[in-house]
């Protein structure tokens, strides 16, 4: 995974967030992706979200697998530990890391091949465990690093650059996550920062598994007319369902100009996400209607974006495991090892 060191340029007048960091402090290495890659826009949106959330970089862990998308964790938050796992296995590594230290913010970045082909099983089970993490799929329907093979999210009938037609049905990560019981499901488009940033912030603050599927066109292998994941296609077919306006309580609460049909979602850290449905009657708390809505859009050839489902009362992995609140990595050895007297008593059972 290539990266080039980027000089950290900090202008003295650059705006600081509440922990005294400028946006540049959330940057990472120079991207080595193709010029114009959607993934770089996602990186920019992530940096903006972290900065706005006052996230201390060293309290986050950046997790990824293999592929173009998985390279991007090197392009933000250079002061965070990063983990570039084996292909498709980022969910299990994150699950183990989170089990050991539940205090960190886990940022998982994956792609459609990494999540829906080789890592399909791991993604499914991380959702079921409700591992507390942000899980971004930078979804372009194509394998970039190996030069243009279809991934499992390639649309039926879409053509590759070489003219091959995809005849296999696609896997929609949003429908998958809704089916598997994910507690936060959203979709956006890499080129729509205004929508993506609030979604990412809401996802980062959600306690539990937050899936954000980001359609992120591949400029080298999929940004052409036959592809349903090209810039032109998505821009013309995007249907925004729910607009998220994320407002942490420690900042001034902005009341949206249009505040009819607003759903307020309280997140675990006490902050709130305000969801505005642009479709009359849309309920982001109903798994059933979210499912129906996404499918209805697919039938119309449209892409449902926005926060599609939230369950802020879901039990995360640690709730289910009944783990102590302090990270397991910080438990004093005396509380872990029962000691010699206990062992002596134990031995009586084996006589």
């Amino acid at each position: 995974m290539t990266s080039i060191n980027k000089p950290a340029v900090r202008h003295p007048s650059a705006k600081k967030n509440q922990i005294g960091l400028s946006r540049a402090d959330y940057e990472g290495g120079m991207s080595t992706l193709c010029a114009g890659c959607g993934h770089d826009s996602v990186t920019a949106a992530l940096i903006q979200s972290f900065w706005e959330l006052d996230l201390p970089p060293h309290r986050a862990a950046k997790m990824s697998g293999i592929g173009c998308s998985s390279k991007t964790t090197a392009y933000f938050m250079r002061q965070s530990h990063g983990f570039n796992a084996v292909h498709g296995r980022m969910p299990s590594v994150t699950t183990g890391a989170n089990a050991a230290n539940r205090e960190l913010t886990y940022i998982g970045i994956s792609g459609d091949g990494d999540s829906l082909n080789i890592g399909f099983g791991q993604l499914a089970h991380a959702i079921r465990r409700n591992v507390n993490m942000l899980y971004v799929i930078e979804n372009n329907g194509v394998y970039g690093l190996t030069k243009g093979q279809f991934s499992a999210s390639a649309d039926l009938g879409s053509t590759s650059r070489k003219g091959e037609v995809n005849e296999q049905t696609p896997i929609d990560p949003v429908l998958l996550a809704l089916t598997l019981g994910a507690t936060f499901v959203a979709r956006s488009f890499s080129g729509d920062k205004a929508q993506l940033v609030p979604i990412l912030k809401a996802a980062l603050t959600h306690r539990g598994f937050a899936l954000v599927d980001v359609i992120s066109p591949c400029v080298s292998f999929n940004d052409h007319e036959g592809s349903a994941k090209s810039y032109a296609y998505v821009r013309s077919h995007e249907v925004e369902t729910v607009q998220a306006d994320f407002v942490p309580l420690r900042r001034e609460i902005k009341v949206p100009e249009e505040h009819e049909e607003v759903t307020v979602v309280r997140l675990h850290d006490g902050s709130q996400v305000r969801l505005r449905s642009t479709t009359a009657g849309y309920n982001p708390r109903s798994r059933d209607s979210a499912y129906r809505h996404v499918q209805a859009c697919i039938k119309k050839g449209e892409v449902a974006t926005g926060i599609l489902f939230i369950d802020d009362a879901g039990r995360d992995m640690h709730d289910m495991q009944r783990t102590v609140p302090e990270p397991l990595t910080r438990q004093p050895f005396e509380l872990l090892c029962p000691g010699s007297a206990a062992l002596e008593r134990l031995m009586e059972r084996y006589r």
Partner: protein
Amino acid sequence: MNGVNDFAFKSATVNGTGSASANSLLMEAIFRMGIPVTGKNIFPSNIQGLPTWYEIRVSGEGYTARPPMIDLVVALNPATYAQDIASVRPGGYVLYDSSWPLDPKLARDDVTLLGVPLGAMCREAFTRDRDRTLLRNIAYAGALTALLQIDMAVIEQMLNEKFGRKKALLEANHRALRLGYDYARAHFTCPLPFHCAPLDKTSGAVLMDGNTACALGALYAGATVGAWYPITPSTSLMDAFKEFCQEFRVDPETGLHRYCIIQAEDELSAAGMVVGAGWMGARSFTCTSGPGISLMQEFLGYAYYTEIPGVFINVQRAGPATGMPTRTQQADLMSMAYASHGDTKHIVLFPADPGECFTLTIAAFDAAERFQTPVFVASDLDIGMNDWMIPRLQWDDSYRPDRGKVLDATALEQLPKFFRYLDSDGDGVAARSLPGESGKGAYFTRGSGHDRYGAYTEDSAAYADVLARIGKKLDTAAHALPAPEYLRQDGADVGIVHIGSTAAPVREAVARLRERGVTADVMRIRAFPFAPEVRVFLERYRSIFVVEQNRDAQLRSLLAIETGVRRDQMTPVLDFAGQPMTADAVVSAVTSHLAGVSA
């Protein structure tokens, strides 16, 4: 064999009918009489309805290997009558259920048949079908108590301990026990020529299986994350760990857990979780068996190259493929030692019995963190699932985990700059930082090529530099891992090398070889990569025998690869049929080879 405190018997039953409790009752009673005893459970990969055997060896001399012959068989499974009766030594005994006639064709002139109407007696004494089936086992235990002169008071005491509060059950068990006992006393000469006589050789010992002992090791080593996928014969290990954690790791005030046990969706994921938790700084482990090791290969190579600690307990079973899941082997040696693609080498520790399952599991956690690498504990089904007589486990309260070189926030602050893979003191191990501590310790963990500073590289020299340093680290480890154990005799000119559970048959074989004029020294290797003294031993003797439980002489191959000693200078003694090895197998292989050499 076949004298006082020197005999073996086995029960042949159908699995799922409750014979396990009768067998453990007998074994524990003999143990409580102070007589060394071993049990081998030979069971099917099935829940109910297939043949199962339990062999109990009584040995005043303390030999714990699989018995060389069977003096008495309790034949309760008509489906295996023929083979069970055939398995008794000439002059031995067959106890069978005479409620139904035995096919006269099965009788042997050279064995004594002891018919006990177990079924008929239980049918008469008990009304419920369940009792009639289950208590038939206790009735045969009663008959054996009389025939083998097992202390009835001890057995009754054990029943009291087990069923103390369940009065009806206790009474029924006592009654069934008496039925068999009284019948045997009334109809046969009790005791038989071979039987038990109290000794005082078990007071410092316990009866424990290796999976329980590994679980205790993980508990005492301070492991907090266990990730696993159920697979025979390792499953009872994580079950035991969970039970110990429920007893010792639940906060008394909040009821919350100081542990996290995750049943993964497969072994790939279990390995990933171990690696993730190890990276984060927790002591993490998995338990699995051969097929699981195959699935974990990619992550093992990843953890090797990125230098992340983790403990992988492999309770080996008979392979390849699904193989025989309920039979034992030592056939994963190569797949552990060099697991994964590319240049890799892994630390493997070889416990010989449940006692070492405890100590070497703890040693594995220390080695994993000290050398920042995955460490295997190579147990097997025989150690893991059978009850062994071992010295009581001891604990030194001054023990503290060896966390290896870990830089906390304060230490990181004192550095001009932190580089993850920079070996500053030349021992091959670079200091690591844990996520969450300090931005100064941040680095990118990557399985792709990296240089000593932790940066991505495709530069040949920078890449080779790191790979060579990791190789050196494993060389360093060889000096620091548990040393081989020796059994030496004056004038020995034969050397026997082995690992793990073959300790019991080898020890017995050495005594029997001596009776035949062959004086052998033994080296039991306890760790891979091998300590330098391993080569010294291999070069010292006229003949070297390598005893192991696989077809391809994998231990011999490892010795040849790693020490440079020629393969043809080491004679393999192999048993890969899936049963625990007997001393006979070792004795006959050694003597026949030596006879061939001198002829």
